[in-house]
């Protein structure tokens, strides 16, 4: 049996299992807390798995090992930022947010600010971040799934995106947070087992000697020791070095501002469980990135990664699947076909789990923040709110499908980095200042969010990624006066600064009693939302 046939069978199994989970979850979803937060009844360990499943996107799974396979050590730099970022989430955000919020990121701001302006701002940035991230996943899905199934052509890509999009809408509309969480848990287990298996098989080829593996990678790529040193990709000149610093900042500060990660903290009963879930997530994600290091250098050591190779033409995305085939016995062998199909299926499950989480996040924010609180001023019934959330999931999913079909040219890593940069520039400043600064007020919060968001997207618009010789949208005109591809180094300080200036210029004095209440509640959990049983 060919690996394409096997992959197809495994894909169908994954689809069938996840559809089963979704129907099961829908029967246990009754209240709004069930739909948005899974009844707040997941254990710390379950949520830790789900967080890992939500966080380790196809960009992590295939992208990082691919980047290492092609650019050596510089690919590894990404994963360090992605991991250290979890300490920001653990120490400054997770528990305090669990205690003071309810369903969305905006809840925490609305706790002591004027609700309508802050909810509008927070919902805007939630949807923007999630759409960028969603596009990255779906554009990748189209190219990847067709590649893994061995089908070709523009229409195959479009149909794949449509199928992935419809599945994602189905999970979110029918299964809500419970369904989405279980899909993410299944995916995390698959991803970890697949990665462990391939890592062990690669290491076994080198008698578990890491130094030999690195040496083989350096010599097989023909790049020598430079392959093992930083600088192959980012060390070209001062601009690229500053660009890398800027990227590093966005990665480390972005995670704790990603709305689809933040709402996962609401799915556990207490703040302590939120802490446990982040600790599990750190363990799993850390172990995973350490293994990606082996996969990346393993691919460089064992595969052809030259400019004409399949690894290089797929932008590195095929490094892990082809490596699996190689350690399974090579192309044409049964072992190779089985392992390749397995890794392809893991990649497929990865994409499904991440897009479902993102769609749910946007839909929650549209329904809970915009519909129920901004438009209906808090007078919508719970039933109507959940109904609107389901409609919103449908609409957002549809928009994402259409955009991804027309955005095939966009670079995935660029979209992911942009989502992190917006999260770090717009969301994190508002969240952190709200928790730790008594004087912070409504204008500060809205200015921080809009200021960070507009600066970030604006700078990218005027960067060399959009126009000029390296531009994705315009190559004939060049208005790229901002030299960096990553705006974080400017836009993150701007986000904080806007928050500070907005706060100080507003006549609205920070409401001291409201801050007292927020502080007590976020630190002790007094009066926080309870689990709804089952």
């Amino acid at each position, binding site marked *: 049996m060919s690996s394409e046939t096997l992959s197809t069978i495994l894909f169908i199994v994954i689809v069938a299992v996840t559809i089963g989970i979704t129907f099961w979850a829908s029967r246990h979803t009754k*209240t709004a807390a069930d739909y948005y937060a899974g009844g707040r009844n997941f254990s710390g360990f379950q949520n830790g798995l789900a967080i890992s499943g939500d966080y380790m996107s196809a960009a992590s799974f295939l992208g990082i090992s691919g980047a290492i396979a092609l650019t050596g050590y510089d690919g590894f730099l990404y994963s360090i930022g992605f991991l250290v970022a979890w300490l*920001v989430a653990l120490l400054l955000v997770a528990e305090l947010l669990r205690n003071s919020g309810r369903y969305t990121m905006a809840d925490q701001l609305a706790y002591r600010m004027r609700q309508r302006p802050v909810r509008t701002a927070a919902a805007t940035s939630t949807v923007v971040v999630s759409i960028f991230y969603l596009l990255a996943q779906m554009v990748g899905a189209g190219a990847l799934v067709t590649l893994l199934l061995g089908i070709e052509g523009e229409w195959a890509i479009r149909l794949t995106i449509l199928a992935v999009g419809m599945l994602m809408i189905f999970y979110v509309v029918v299964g809500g947070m419970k369904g989405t969480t279980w899909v993410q848990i299944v995916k995390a287990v698959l991803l970890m087992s697949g990665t462990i298996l391939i890592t062990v098989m690669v290491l076994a080829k080198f008698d578990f000697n890491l130094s030999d593996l690195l040496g083989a990678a350096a010599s097989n790529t023909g790049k020598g020791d430079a392959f093992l040193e930083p600088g192959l990709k980012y060390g070209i000149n001062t601009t690229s070095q500053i660009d890398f610093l800027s990227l590093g900042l966005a990665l480390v500060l972005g995670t704790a501002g990603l709305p689809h990660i933040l709402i996962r903290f609401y799915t556990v009963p207490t703040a302590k469980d939120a802490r446990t879930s982040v600790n599990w997530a750190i363990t799993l994600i850390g172990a995973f990135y350490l293994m990606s290091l082996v996969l990346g250098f393993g691919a460089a050591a064992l595969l052809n990664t030259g400019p004409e190779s399949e690894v290089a033409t797929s932008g590195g995305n095929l490094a892990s699947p082809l490596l699996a085939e190689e350690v399974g016995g090579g192309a044409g062998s049964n072992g190779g076909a089985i392992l390749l199909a397995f890794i392809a299926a893991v990649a497929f499950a990865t994409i499904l789990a991440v897009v479902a989480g993102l769609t749910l996040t946007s839909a929650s924010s549209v329904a809970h923040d915009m519909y129920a*609180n901004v438009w209906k001023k808090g007078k919508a019934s719970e039933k109507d709110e959940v109904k609107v959330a389901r409609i919103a999931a449908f609409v957002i999913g549809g928009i994402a499908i259409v955009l991804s079909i027309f955005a095939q040219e966009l670079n995935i890593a660029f979209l992911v980095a942009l989502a992190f940069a917006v999260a770090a520039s717009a969301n994190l400043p508002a969240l952190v200042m709200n928790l730790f600064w008594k004087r912070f007020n409504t204008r500060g919060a809205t200015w921080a969010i809009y200021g960070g968001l507009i600066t970030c997207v604006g700078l990218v618009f005027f960067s060399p990624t959009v126009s000029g010789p390296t531009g994705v949208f315009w190559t004939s005109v060049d208005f790229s006066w901002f030299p960096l591809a990553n705006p974080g180094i400017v836009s993150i300080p701007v986000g904080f600064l806007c928050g500070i200036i907005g706060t100080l210029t507003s006549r609205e004095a920070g409401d001291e009693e409201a801050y007292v209440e*927020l*502080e007590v509640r976020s630190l*002790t959990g007094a009066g926080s939302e309870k689990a709804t049983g089952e």
Partner: protein
Amino acid sequence: MTSATEDTGEGDGRVHLRSDHPIYVELHQTAEFAELRSKFRRFVFPATFAFMAWYLLYVVMSNWAHDFMSTEVVGHINVALVFGILQFVSTFLIAWMYGRYMEKNVDPLARDLNQRYDERIASEGLNR
């Protein structure tokens, strides 16, 4: 188990906002709360500063200390790789230390204050 969603009642969909209950100000003024907050901050602020500085040092060195980072330690394993792996180790370590610190110093205080809140609310016969 009381449900946060039940007591909002079908139909009014009350907005989750601060409650204005005087208990919060009272808890805020207790010595226990002051202790809890200072213990929380005493760990979280220095730790955040430390891991950010450590991480930025790594990024800056990867950029501008190429020769040092390329020094080989054992076989093909160079300083850059060791430094990178140490970032993983320090992340695991801080996360573990934080959990232990909170359990020992902060959680008991939070539990106590939380209980006072629950008792007060229950004694008033209110649902929340």
